């Protein structure tokens, strides 16, 4: 039986606590009385995963069994989540591979010839052939790539299809192949409460003009949080779109959840609570930290990005998207939810080396922003862990470095847009259309491995709620110039950061440290 989530109150016996800071980490002593949110202990993985997959496909929720839905002569499209989840990428074989192999086995048994596999990458960069192979496995890759295994292209006008408009006037436009299929099988990995369910097809296969209805400042400011779907305007929009899709298409959703085994055995101390580190963990910490700090930056990044998570799969659920997602959410929260009594004046987060948009890439300053003020700040249900007007303290070096191939529009966004304004509303009004329709960005998105031109703006919107909520943002160890360009302050040490924060929140602030990853979602009462 795994232990539930836990909130530690720091006292004299509390050891120094681990803080992620990009491609590195440190131990930090927090002031007495600080609260620390830990996720529930890692849940046990399913023992007979193939058996569970078979069971889920044969006993779906709200749908006929898959072998009854699949018929000879049909047009079948299998869509799968792209490389943005899970994080870090899971050790192979990826759960998507295992599920796709089962689905293809059934399709082959039924004599289905017209099968296509599509990565639901929306406006994310295309996955490289190597990344596709890693996700779907050697056998599937060899059989389907490149003609029948490909990335979704949100800018291929001829290959998009309008399904209709929601009652709110939102256009639903998705990949034509999927729209014209007799059956869409969507293979999902849910790592956070925001993903999966209504989001899968309506976002993963959508075009820019469909996505803009929910990826905007207004919606994100009214998504509190976007990891709490009932209180997320973004998810309300997903729901409306998914309803329309459900009326017009046949979707068979297969969702999975993983446990909190985020780091491999050699880094196991990162998965554990600090006071439970044994001698080996302590020695490993010292050795890894010393070696990591000595490595040149390029090599250090390479090593971190080669790290694969030994995630265990905790659930496989199949059937109608809405019913499946209810079960998925339950399993996901069981692994991540920790109750917390009320917000504090100051919230602290250590930002790791990876976020959904820098897999095999560089965590540029905009992605640091979106990870901190977007993803991590929004890991709550009820209310943020920081009170309105409070201060967020993040740990990250915030280096001014960008991946030139993956993030070309991010470079321009940082250099040109943020030099002019950091206000999400002003950015949306003045720059979104230019970035979204810039032919060069579109060309690179379609033919190279670049994120869509509008993507950095979405990342900025991602933090719009936090920007409105927080009174100040401080980066410990952040590059001063780069951080200032984004409108934030830097501090050399936690003591300095707390001193700066006291200007805003008073002399004796309450402090909460959100200890993640492994991911913990705060249920703030």
């Amino acid at each position, binding site marked *: 039986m795994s232990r539930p989530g836990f909130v530690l109150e720091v006292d004299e016996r509390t050891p120094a606590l681990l803080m992620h800071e990009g491609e590195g980490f440190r131990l930090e002593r927090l002031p007495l009385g600080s609260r620390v949110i830990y996720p529930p202990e890692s849940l046990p993985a399913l023992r007979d995963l193939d058996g569970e997959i078979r069971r889920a496909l044969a006993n779906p929720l709200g749908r006929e069994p898959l072998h009854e839905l699949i018929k000879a002569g049909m047009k079948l499209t299998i869509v799968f989540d792209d490389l943005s989840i899970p994080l870090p990428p899971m050790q192979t074989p990826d759960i998507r591979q295992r599920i796709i192999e089962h689905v293809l086995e059934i399709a082959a048994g039924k004599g289905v010839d017209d099968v296509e596999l599509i990565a639901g990458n929306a406006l994310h960069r295309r996955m490289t052939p190597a990344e596709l192979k890693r996700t779907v496995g050697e056998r599937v890759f060899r059989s389907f790539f490149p003609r029948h295994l490909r990335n979704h292209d949100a800018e291929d006008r001829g290959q998009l299809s309008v399904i209709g408009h929601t009652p709110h006037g939102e256009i639903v436009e998705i990949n034509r192949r999927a729209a014209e299929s007799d059956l869409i099988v969507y293979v999902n990995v849910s790592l956070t409460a925001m993903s999966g369910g209504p989001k899968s097809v309506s976002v993963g296969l959508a075009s820019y003009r469909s996505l803009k209805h929910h990826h905007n400042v207004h919606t994100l400011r009214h998504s509190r949080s976007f990891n709490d779907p009932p209180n997320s305007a973004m998810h309300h929009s997903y729901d409306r779109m998914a309803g329309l899709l459900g009326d017009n298409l046949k979707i068979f959703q297969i969702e999975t959840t993983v446990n909190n085994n985020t780091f491999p055995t050699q880094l196991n101390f990162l998965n554990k609570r600090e006071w439970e580190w044994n001698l080996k963990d302590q020695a490993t910490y010292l050795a890894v930290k010393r070696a990591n700090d000595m490595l040149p930056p390029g090599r250090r990044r390479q090593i971190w990005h080669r790290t694969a998570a030994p995630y265990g799969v905790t659930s496989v659920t199949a059937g109608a998207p809405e019913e499946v997602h209810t079960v998925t959410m339950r399993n996901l929260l069981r692994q991540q939810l920790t109750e917390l009594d009320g917000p504090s004046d100051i919230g602290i987060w250590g930002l790791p080396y990876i976020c959904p948009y820098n897999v095999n890439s560089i965590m540029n300053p905009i992605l640091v922003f979106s990870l901190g003020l977007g993803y991590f700040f929004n890991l709550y249900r009820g209310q943020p862990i920081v009170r309105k007007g409070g201060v967020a303290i993040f740990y990250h070096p915030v280096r001014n470095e960008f991946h*030139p191939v993956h993030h*070309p529009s991010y*470079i*321009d966004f940082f*250099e*040109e847009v943020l030099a002019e304004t950091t206000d999400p509303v002003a950015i949306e009004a003045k720059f979104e259309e*230019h970035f979204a329709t*810039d*032919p*060069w960005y579109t*060309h690179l998105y379609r033919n190279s491995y670049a994120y869509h031109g509008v993507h950095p703006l979405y990342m900025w919107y991602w933090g719009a709620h936090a920007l409105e909520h927080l009174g100040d943002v401080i980066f410990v160890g952040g590059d001063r110039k780069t951080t200032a360009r984004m409108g934030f302050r830097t501090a050399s040490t936690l003591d300095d950061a707390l001193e700066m924060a006291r200007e805003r929140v008073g002399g004796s602030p309450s402090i909460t440290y959100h200890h993640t990853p492994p991911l913990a979602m705060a249920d703030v009462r």
Partner: protein
Amino acid sequence: MNLTLEYHRSPARYFAGRTVTAAVHGARTAAAVAANLSPLRLITRPDPRLPEDGWTRVKPIISGICGSDLGLLTGRNSPYLSAVISLPFTPGHEVVGETLDDVPGIPRGSRVVIDPVLGCLPRGVDTCQWCDADQHSRCDHITTGVVSAGIQTGFCTDTSGGWSQMLVAHHSQLHVLPDGLDDRSAVMIEPLSCAIHTVRRVSVPDGASVLVVGAGTVGLLTVLALREYTKCGPIYVVARYPHQRERAREMGATEVLATNRPARALRRSTGAFLAHPERGDEYLLGGTDLAFECTAGSGLDTALRAVRAGGTVVLSGMPNAGVDLTPIWFRELQLVGAYASGGQDFPDAIALAQQAPLAGFVDAVYPLARWREAIGHASAAGRLGTIKVAFDPQKD
């Protein structure tokens, strides 16, 4: 006797300056050592003689330090011009002065600005085809006539130059200044006439997008001239320093770009594609319709990489750097030179100077005795927040 700053022949100093400023951080080094290494000396010479009738002695009131003067002092200018100057000479071709003799149409004691080009008329020779066509900046006779060789006043032994207490000028070179125009604004007329000439060297279609590389005196005045004499569309200016960015906007720039990766910054505004060669700077496929290179050559590469196929690059500053000409071939560009001024450029510059926001362009005026400081200041003008440094030769 005439106190004068004289540029003299000194191969040792020439090569020393050239070597030092060609090194890494050469520009910064130039600011520190330009004056000390340059073949320049402050000496007393007899007053210059009047070559013939129609010439007058002029007492310089204020005389600017131009980028081409600095290129000369640091050995960066091309030796190409050594054939059309005479040594030793007194530099200074941006001159506001007072006449000391009566000449046709200009009584003694007039406050004048000098058009420095020494064409056929001042030289007293039969006019060449260019001077006949009122394009004396192209004069073929700049090595002959009543004064020694020299492309302009300020490069000619016999006329002396603005960095002295007295020079001689032909009446055709003189333009009487209106009373309302102060000396510091008036000294900007010569570079302004060059900027007007530069803009007139090419046809600028209405709405055309323009890149101006450099935001020193020449760049800023080129922006001003573009706004005054053309109906061009957006003007993008590459500027290094904050005060240059402010001035560029004041002159009418649409957008000011930083010097690091200007092609990238320009790409989004022009809807171009960016190409990354394996070596060398990135360039645009697309870009602006025209570019004006106003940095004495170092920005020519930027201009060539930022202009659309079939576009035009105008070379305004005196070039002193090598450049990869492949874009001219591959993108079928037109490269146009623009030197000095001609025709109506000078009168138009005088008219424009009376209404243009030129106040504050000259913010440092030195006596000749402090010439080392003046040259050092001018060499580091950008970093020091200055646009134009000048001499007041009559000041002690």
